[in-house]
Each structure stands twice: as C-alpha cells, then as structure tokens.
C-alpha cells in the first residue's frame, strides 16, 4: 500500500509505469462548461487508483483523454516519464500502449477467444503468443476456452476475457471503465477480487472507474473523487471514508443527511445517528415517515418540522418502529466527524 503525501505540485513522478497528469482540460464544442478542468493526478507504478463520481462528473472523459481518444485543450500527460500529450506533442492512441476494458467488454465477435487475446500481440513470436494467452486464460480461470466465440460466453466470462485481452501486451497502464456494471452483485464481487488479484500479480498500473462504492473501496490503493470535471479529493480508501472533503464526496459512499447549517458538522451518515424516545433528548425530533427493510439493517425516514427532506437513520433490523410515531434523533458517537474541508490548494494535485 502506498502512503499519502502532498508533494509539491510541479514535481512529476518519473518512475517506470507511473502516470502523471497535470492541468488537463478537455472541452466539447457543444458544451459551455469544460468536461475536465485542470485535472492534476499522479498514480504510482503498479498501484490501482479508483475513480468515483456521479454521472457526468468527467470520469469517462478523463479515461478517453488518457488513452488519446479526446484531444485536450491544455495539460500534460506523462507515462513512465514519456510525454504522451503536451502542447508540443500528441501520441496517437494506437501508439500509447494503454490497455482499455469497457463496460461491455467489446470482444471482437468474429474472432475466437484465442484470436481476441492475441489481437494486440502483433510482433510477438507465435510460441510466445500462445504461452501468454494460455497463462492469462489460466489466471482468469478459463483454461480451454481458446476456441470459443464471444456469443458462446456468459457476461462474466466475456468481461474476464476482455480483461485478459487488455493485459496480454503487458500495458504500462490499464484503464477499466466500469467493467463490472452489467453483472449481478455476486458475480461482480467475485470478479472484482479476481481482477485485483491479477492486476497485483501482473504489477499493472491501473485506473479503475466505477460508480459502486464497494468496488472502489475494496480494489483501489487510492481513490479519486470527481465532481464537475475536477478531482475534489484523492486519498486512501480508509482516509477518504473517515474524512470526506465534502457532503458530495461522502454521499458517493454512503447515505448521508444534510443538517441545518447551524449544526456542526453539517452532515452525518445514516449509521452515525440513532433513534431515541422523545423524553431521552436528542438534537432534533420528528415523526417516522417511512421504513425501508434491508435484511441486516433498516432505514428509518424521520420527517422533521420545517425540513423538506427527511433525516435517514440506519438501525438494526430487530428494532421495531411505527410509522407516524414521534421520535428523537441522537448522534451515535460523541466524537465529531471531521468535515473540515481541505484547502483549495489541496483539492487537486495529490500524489501517492
């Protein structure tokens, strides 16, 4: 695991396979707002960076710019010390050697598994190509699948083959664009573990875009949070969970409650609150409006006077509450949740 540090912004990392992005901006002709605004990001060699953010926050644009499918308006991209994109240079996508796995896998339907895996191994000797394909097929748990065609594979198998195909040429950087989104939760979980395992074995520097908080938290060595085309926070999963820089960052990982501005902190997670009888005090009180049952836990929605959105409180599933009954809300832990915003200077340009 790599440590967190905040080095000087202009010092770019140059170790092999590390990625350094500085002040990257991308604009689309039909949009007033830039899709990416001066994004600065460093990813250490052999580490996995998860990127999370709401739809339209610029995650996919960042990936497209990294692999050369978008021309940036400004900024620099360096991979292992080699400049891929700057004001003077633009390396074509086919020469960047950056692997890409998309949401649908995009296996070539007319090629079988072996041909798909070998597609990027153009200048390899036949024997080496065969060995590499076999090695990868075994790593992803699909030996003897060489002769199968994409339409003969299940969704999970397709994604595993797509991952193996992208890894086959040993790319210095691998981009995963929500690769498990189309899979059911059990499959996603097992594939996530398998992927992290293979990536660590292969020592591939990886950027993993996802909108599932558990994928980002469990897979990434570090996590970058994107909002409106900028990176608002970049930290290790534990730090990010403990100290999210803003309600926006916190809401990507859990249910949160925005509280009136007079309160400090002005937001709390649903599991950081508890319900008590009105007579036992609490910082606010209201009426139970709705209860959602989730098995292990249940979410109780409490409507507070003069507050349009109800406060959500996570409670154990054994506890019994009645819709319409009055209730008070108390903070579970006395220790205030850190919500100190990082200074503007630290919003971007965070390195690991």
């Amino acid at each position, binding site marked *: 695991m790599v440590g967190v540090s905040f080095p000087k912004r202009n010092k770019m990392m140059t170790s092999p396979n590390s990625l350094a992005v500085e002040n990257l901006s991308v*604009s689309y002709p039909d949009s007033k707002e830039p899709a990416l605004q001066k994004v600065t990001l460093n990813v250490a060699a052999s580490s996995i960076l998860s990127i999370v953010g709401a739809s339209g926050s610029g995650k996919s644009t960042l990936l497209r710019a990294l*692999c*050369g*499918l*978008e*021309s*940036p*308006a*400004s900024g620099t991209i360096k991979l292992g010390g080699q400049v891929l994109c700057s*004001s003077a240079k*633009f390396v*074509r*996508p*086919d*020469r*960047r*050697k*950056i*692997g*890409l796995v*998309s949401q*649908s896998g*995009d296996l*070539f*339907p*007319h090629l079988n598994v072996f041909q798909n895996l070998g*597609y*990027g191994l*153009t200048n390899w000797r036949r024997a080496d190509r065969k060995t590499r394909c076999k090695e990868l097929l075994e790593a992803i748990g699909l030996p003897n699948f060489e002769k199968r065609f994409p339409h003969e594979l299940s969704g999970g198998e397709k994604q595993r083959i*797509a991952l193996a*195909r*992208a890894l086959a*040429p040993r790319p210095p950087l691998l*981009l995963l664009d929500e690769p498990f989104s189309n899979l059911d939760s059990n499959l996603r979980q097992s594939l996530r573990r398998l992927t992290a395992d293979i990536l660590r074995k292969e020592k591939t520097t990886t950027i993993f875009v996802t909108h599932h908080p558990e994928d980002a938290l469990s897979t990434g060595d570090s996590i970058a949070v994107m909002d409106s085309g900028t990176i608002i926070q970049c930290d290790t999963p534990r730090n990010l969970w403990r100290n999210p820089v803003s309600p926006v960052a916190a809401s990507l990982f859990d249910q949160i409650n925005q509280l009136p501005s007079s309160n400090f902190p002005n937001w709390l997670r649903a599991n950081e609150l508890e319900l008590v009888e009105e007579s036992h005090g609490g910082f606010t009180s209201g009426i139970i409006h709705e209860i959602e049952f989730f098995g292990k836990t249940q979410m109780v929605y409490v409507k507070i006077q003069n507050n349009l959105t109800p406060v959500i409180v996570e409670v154990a599933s054994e506890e019994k509450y009645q819709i319409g009954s009055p209730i008070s809300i108390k903070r579970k832990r006395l220790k205030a949740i850190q919500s100190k915003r990082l200074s503007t200077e630290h919003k971007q340009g965070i390195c690991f």
Partner: protein
Amino acid sequence: MFFKKKPFHSDTWGLRLWKFLAWALGLTLLAPVLVILLSLFSSLSPDSTEAWQQISSFLLKDAIKETIILVIGSCVVASLLGIPAAWFIENFDFPGKRLLSIALVLPLAIPPFIAAIISSDLREKLIPFLIKIRREEGVESFLWWEEHLRYGCLILLFGSLLYPYVFLAGRSAFAGSGIIMGEAGRMLGRSPWRVFSSIQLPLARPALAAGIFLVAMEVINDYGAVKHFGFNTLTVTLFTTWFGMDQIETAKKLASWILISVFFLVALEHWHRGRALRSLHPEGAKSFGSPSSIITRIACYLSCLVPISLGLILPLFGLIDWLLKSSSIYDQIDWEEIITASRHTLILALSSTVICLATALIIIGAARFSTNPILRVISKFSTVAGYACPGTVIALGVMGFAVALGNQFPSESWIGRLLVPSGFIWLLFAIVTRYFSIGSQMVQQGLARQNKSLDQSSFSLGKTPTKTFFRINLPLLKPSILGGATLVFVDVCKELPLCLLLRPFDFETLSTLTYSKVDQGAIYACAIPSLFLISVSMLGLIIVELNGWRKLSKTK
C-alpha cells in the same frame, strides 16, 4: 487553447490517402447533380428559350399533374398492400410465414415496364366495357373512363410491384421497438388493433415514410411503364425534350427544376423522420404468438396473399402465358442476341456492383474515422443524392460532366477517346452514381451497428484506424456487403432509362432488348429476355432474404 483540435489519428499516411480518396470519389459522385443544379443559373440560347416556353406552356402542366397523381396513387396502394402484410408478419406466428415473407419481397424483381407489357392482355379485357360506354354515354364519357382506367391500372401496377419497399421498411420498424411497445400497450389493456393504431403505427411512421419515399422515387424515375400506358410524366417530358426536340439545354433546365422538387421531397422525408429512426432497436424482437381467433388467422393470410397475388402470381402467370404463346416463334428467336444482351447485362451489373460497394466502403469508412464535418456531409449527400435523382436527370448530368471533361483533352488522345460521351465508361459512371446509395446505405447501416467502442478497443491494442477497419470492421460487414451488392446487382439488371440514354452504339442489355422488341411491336419475342431478367433478379432477392433470416435466427 493551444492544442490543435484535430482528429487524433490524422497523422497516419494510410488514413490521409484514404480520406483523400473519399473526398475525390464523393465529389465525383456529386458532380452530375452539381452540373444539373448549375444549369439553373445559366442563360438559355434564343432557340432553347423558345423550346422552354413551349414546354412550360404546353407540356409541363400536364406532366406535373400526371406525375403527382401517379406518385400519390401508387404510394397509397403500396402502403395499403405493404403495411398490413408487414404488421401481420412481424406480430404473429403462423404456418408458412417464412415462405410468404420471402414471396412478399419478390415483386421487386419484376421491372414495371415488363409488367406493363404483360398486363396488355388483361387490359384488353376492358375494351368491351369501354366500347359499351362509348355507345351508350358518348365520346366524352368514354374519354373520361378511358383516362381514369388507365390511371387506375398503372397505379395498381406500380403499387403492387413497389409495395415491398413499404413492406420491408414496416417490417424493420415493427420488429424493433414496435413489438416491445406493442407488448407494453397490450399489458395496459389495449386490443391488438388499438395497439397497432395508437402505438405501433405512429412509432413506425418515420420508417414507413422512408419506404413510401422510395416508391415515389421509383414512380418518378419510371420511363418504360408510363410510356407504355401513354402518360407524359416529367421523366417522359425530359426524354421528349432531349431526344424528340433535341434541346439538351432546355432538358437540363427542366431537369434542374425536377431535381429541386425531388430535393424538397427528400428534405421533407428527412424532416419527418427526424431522430425517431435512430431510437429503434431491433434486439429482443418477438411476436404475439399464434393468432388466437379465426378472423385474425384469415387476416394474416389475406394480408400476405393479396399483395403476392397482385405483385407476383399475376405477372408470373402473364409471363408463362406469354412464353406459351411465343412458343410458335421459338425457331425465329435470335438466341445470339439474347446471349450477348445477357453478357452485357452481367458485365454492367457486376462491374457497377463492385465499384459501388468499393466506393461505399471508402467513403463511409473514411467518414467513420474522421471528425471533418464537410467529409461527413459529402458522405451523407452522396448516399442520398443518386437515388433521389431520376435516372434521366442523372444521365443529363453525366452527359454535361462528360462534355465538360472531354473539352479539356484533345479528342485524338487516348484519354479523349476514353471520355467520349457515348462510351461505356459514362454509362457505368451514371449507374454507379444512381445506385451507389443502395449499396452505401447497407454499408452505413452495418457500420452503424458496430459500436465505436470496438474501434477504440482495437486502438488501445496498438492498431491504426486502417488496420482496425480491415481486421475488425470489414469482416463484420460481410452480411451488409453481400446484401448491398445483391440489391445493386438486381437493380442494375433492371435499369432501363439510363441504359437507353447512355449506352454505346449496339450495346444491348436484357432490359433495353426487351424494350426495343416491344417498341418494334414484337411483344412475344421479348418473353425470353424478360424471363432471364426476372429470374436473375428473383435469385438475388431470395439470397438477400435468406441471409436476413439467418441473421435474425442467429440473434434470437
């Protein structure tokens, strides 16, 4: 912004060459249309001005009226025959559905002018009725009936031969979200009929408009059938101006106005289509199952059998009858003439098919990998312009282009001899200009179905756009290329006006041979070439249909 906003792969030399070729070919294909449009601004000589005045005061009014009546009538009949058949085929499963579905497309193989000749015998049966009218109600009533019966017969003929355009468009629309939306409608308690009228028909309207537009274009383009029925449509007037009056400048002027009207129709169709067609997804299509009531079952068969009887069985019976009647003159048939015409047809059809498809791949492929808006516009226009122009207009444009180009080279030089306006090369050029859009539309649709993320995966694995096209896009395009090639081949085999206008001396194709035999009054002598022509076309259509079915069953 200090980055050059260029497409990311503009620096490969292969792609540069490819794009240059696409530009050159696209502009060349548009050249005949541009020549005609430019003639709108050129002033006429006194001689041509007089001819223009004559045409506009005596011929044009009737020509416009007759064209509009025939177009509207044929479109209505084609819709009445094509839409119900498409809806029943896509919505219900019934025995013989597959066979009927193939047979429903086959009338496209019968050229309208051959059907017009075949229908002569049937029309003769109306003569006693007309004589009776004349005897009992006078000449005026006779003339009224004669004109209206002619209109009726030709509209019915066009409608029954051209409804497959509407049928095919409707089938693809009903097979798409039409079915899914239809199921949603039925779950909300609507009857199949109400589902059809309130959900599926409005959803399919853009696709149907595209099919009806093709019918309209075929009617405007037709020369043989309308001439045989004695109508003076705009195309016939153009022929008369060019050959009868020998006024090429005036013909160009007339052609430019026809072109503008047609472009107006194209714009109308595109505006009507809007973005709706893009939102249709043919995936997950399934029918309502077997028809539950006997009435629905009868309706299923009637909706298919009526158009098949009118467009296929009746003309085929006519042709067989014709063959039997001509058996007495088999020994007088000039077989060598027929074989030569077949060879010419084959050479013309094969070469234009290869050129059409290769050009389509170059232009549409380049547009896929380019962000240049002008190249995209050229690619779009060149896919529409040719088919939207009547053959006579294209012939005039090609002649104008040939003369303009030929003037640049001395006539004794080899290039001057090659560019002689009545050469095979110009006939080929005209045919490619006209039928390019059919092939290119198939390629375009096939390429549009290939997700762009496939290309991006290939780029990320180190392949250039050119390599990606040859290794990924092209192999996946095979069915579309086969479909496009067959349709172009069939249409070129049937082509009449362009061959009549631009063929070199003594160059007969099966259609021109049939036409000239009829022109000479030797109706029975053209039975064999017609049979050849129809057989080749039908074979082509059956290949395309079977290919389509195989693809459909694969996706299921």
